[in-house]
């Protein structure tokens, strides 16, 4: 006899200054449908048990889970211990079904290791996987021992099913109803169970209030205070050619502003947490809904003491000023905006146009002036190494970074995060244009592409330009975030691998 119908697990390695949102929403939905559910964040368990809550150790040991990274013996042992302790915990919970939440490809290696152990030690338990990390291929496994090169090109769910590691795969779309349908098949239907009524496929959809009651909220590394995730929309109103959000989520869908604001207020009162992180690709996709929830939160905050006010942060798109209501800035401030993450991408208008950003560099400066005026902070993201980045266009990006320094100096921009040079995945619109633009992509390495028109613009050249950007931002005292640091490390690793390949090739030549 099982104790619960399903346990939903988050997997390492996740960021440890935020809680994973999906299991909490799924738990609410599953329980509303009449099934019993537990959630467990096995990423924070790894941080607590194997890393002894030491951040440095977490970064080192979680290399065993990160895509393509090689690890030392300490990390391998930590992973073995994590698998063993996770199975022990799951045995105590004793579920009929284990749901593994695969958020990104950073959870692929953990998914495999844990699923193998569950199969071995809990053979009667069914395994379901779901999450955004399922829509990418298995290239994250490149450093796993014994992996075949051909397997790296397979969609990750295909790899899992071929290896008989999972029983059900829930691909993104209608997660809540699909999970309940899977439980109906595996656990069965009783008089307690019922169908859900969440219209996840409509433009305006609703969602249950997440249940964080199983979370160990005190163990996350809250450098800025506890916060909870909120999802107000799915997808994006743009179709930027380098982005895979439209393919992942389909048409843009959103919740009403009232629905979003009510959830935030309810969660803040239930968990005594005042900070909320929007997981949306953009908080202002629907300006109407955005204004609605901003207004409700602003009015709520006006009636609260300082310590009870609600604050929020999330991703945001820049629009030209003529398309941005002027009252949105004071409203954002009153509603408790802490920081906005905005994709600036490039300092070249030519590149922005080919990215289909529908915005010019000047529009970003206008927005920053408004942010400065209303004391709103933001972080900017840049994407170097676009397919049509000539040297002159690259220089325009450097000039833009120099201009941005002023906004960093006054604190309007908190951080500038320069990403890794453009890589190609099959869900980006750019993959539909490969023939047209004359791009040649290495099927085994999506960072390694060339243009027919410019053979010198290869990965090494893009890495060199990324390095120049890094030297400039360091010179200007511009802080970088964790992701940017990680990505530069990845560049070094890729270059080192390429160097070894060339050395080998040269040796072979000389041998002949």
């Amino acid at each position, binding site marked *: 006899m099982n104790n619960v119908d399903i346990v939903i697990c988050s997997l390492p390695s996740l960021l440890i200054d935020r809680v994973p949102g999906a299991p909490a929403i799924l738990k609410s939905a599953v329980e509303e449908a009449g099934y019993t559910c537990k959630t467990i964040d096995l990423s924070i368990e790894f941080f607590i048990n194997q890393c002894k809550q030491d951040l440095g150790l977490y970064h080192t040991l979680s290399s065993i889970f990160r895509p393509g990274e090689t690890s030392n013996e300490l990390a391998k042992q930590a992973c073995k211990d994590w698998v063993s302790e996770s199975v022990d915990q799951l045995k105590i919970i004793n579920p009929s079904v284990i749901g593994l939440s695969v958020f990104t490809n950073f959870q692929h290696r953990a998914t495999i290791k844990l699923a193998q152990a569950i199969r071995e030690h809990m053979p009667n338990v069914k395994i379901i996987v779901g999450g955004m990390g399922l829509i990418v291929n298995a290239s994250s496994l490149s450093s796993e021992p014994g992996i075949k090169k051909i397997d790296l090109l397979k969609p990750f769910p295909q790899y899992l099913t071929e290896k008989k590691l999972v029983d059900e795969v829930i691909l993104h779309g209608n997660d809540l109803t699909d999970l309940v349908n899977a439980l109906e098949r595996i656990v069965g239907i009783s008089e307690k169970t019922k169908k859900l009524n969440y219209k996840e496929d409509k433009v305006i959809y609703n969602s249950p209030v997440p249940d964080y009651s199983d979370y160990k909220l005190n163990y996350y590394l809250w450098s800025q205070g506890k916060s909870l995730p909120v999802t107000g929309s799915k997808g994006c109103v743009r179709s930027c050619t380098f982005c895979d959000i439209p393919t992942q989520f389909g048409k843009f869908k959103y919740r009403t502003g009232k629905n979003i604001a009510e959830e935030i207020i309810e969660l803040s009162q239930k968990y005594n947490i005042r900070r909320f992180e929007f997981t949306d690709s953009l908080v202002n996709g629907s300006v109407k809904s955005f204004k609605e929830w901003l207004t409700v939160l602003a009015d709520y905050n006006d009636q609260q003491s300082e310590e009870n006010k609600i604050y929020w942060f999330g991703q945001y798109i820049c629009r030209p000023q003529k398309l941005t209501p002027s009252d949105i800035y004071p409203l954002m401030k009153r509603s408790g905006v802490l920081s906005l993450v905005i994709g600036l991408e490039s300092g070249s208008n030519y590149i922005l146009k080919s990215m289909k950003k529908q915005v010019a560099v000047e529009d970003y400066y206008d927005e920053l002036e408004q942010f400065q005026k209303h004391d709103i902070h933001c972080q900017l993201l840049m994407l170097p190494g676009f397919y049509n980045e000539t040297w002159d266009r690259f220089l325009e990006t450097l000039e833009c970074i120099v201009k941005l320094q002023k906004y*960093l*100096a*006054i*604190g309007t921009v908190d951080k500038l995060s320069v990403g890794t040079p453009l890589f190609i995945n099959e869900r980006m619109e750019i993959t539909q244009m490969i023939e047209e633009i004359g791009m040649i992509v290495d099927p085994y390495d999506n960072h390694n592409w060339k243009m027919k028109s410019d053979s010198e613009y290869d990965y*090494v050249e893009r890495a060199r330009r990324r390095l120049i950007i890094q*030297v400039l931002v360091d010179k200007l005292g511009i802080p970088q975030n*964790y992701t940017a640091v990680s990505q530069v490390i990845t*560049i070094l690793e890729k270059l080192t691998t*390429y160097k070894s390949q060339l050395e080998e090739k*040269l040796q072979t030549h000389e041998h002949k």
Partner: protein
Amino acid sequence: MSTNNDPYSLDFLIPDHILELCQLDKFDLSIHLVATAANNQYPLIRVKINDKIIFDEQCRAVTEIHHLLTSKDPVQVTVEYYGRTDKDTVVDSEGNIVENQHLELTKIVVNDVDIVKNSIIYNLGNYTKNLSLEQIQYYSDHGIETGPTHSLSMYENGVWTLNFKMPILTQFAKFKAFEDDTEKSWVDNLNYKIFNTINIVRDLEKQIKTNDHNN
């Protein structure tokens, strides 16, 4: 091309015109002062940059001081209020102050950044009053701090000292940098390692090409 003693410095990779745009040695100062008179006497103010006097006169109600210089070395700016006497505080028969000469630092802009509005000034220095023993006693008796403060209102003779490091905006950006404990720290000489690897890779590619050509 910049020169740098750091053997790992890669500043030479930054194109010259981009480095010029950075204006790393520019120090463009604008000080906006608002003065209040007593007995029709406005405060006497002396402003120095690196001990060189750029302004030394009686303030008007509103005074703006501009100065532009280029420097690679740190820059010290002092705003000194001097010559104030007891006569510059006028009291009525009941001891209430009716006129009190003083100076307000309302706006200081350096390289287009208002360091007062953005609170950067508090990272740069402080206001040290020049008090007589009698005044120190008076303040102490009334529980008022006599040491350096961050008050932008100068009611006593004294000096606001501001210590700038060059490049200015880089110094400000570091003050404002949002530091997050959970973020990974930079790896030592990472940039240099990438630079070095790129050079090796290009060299190997050349060797392979030459071999191919010879074969």
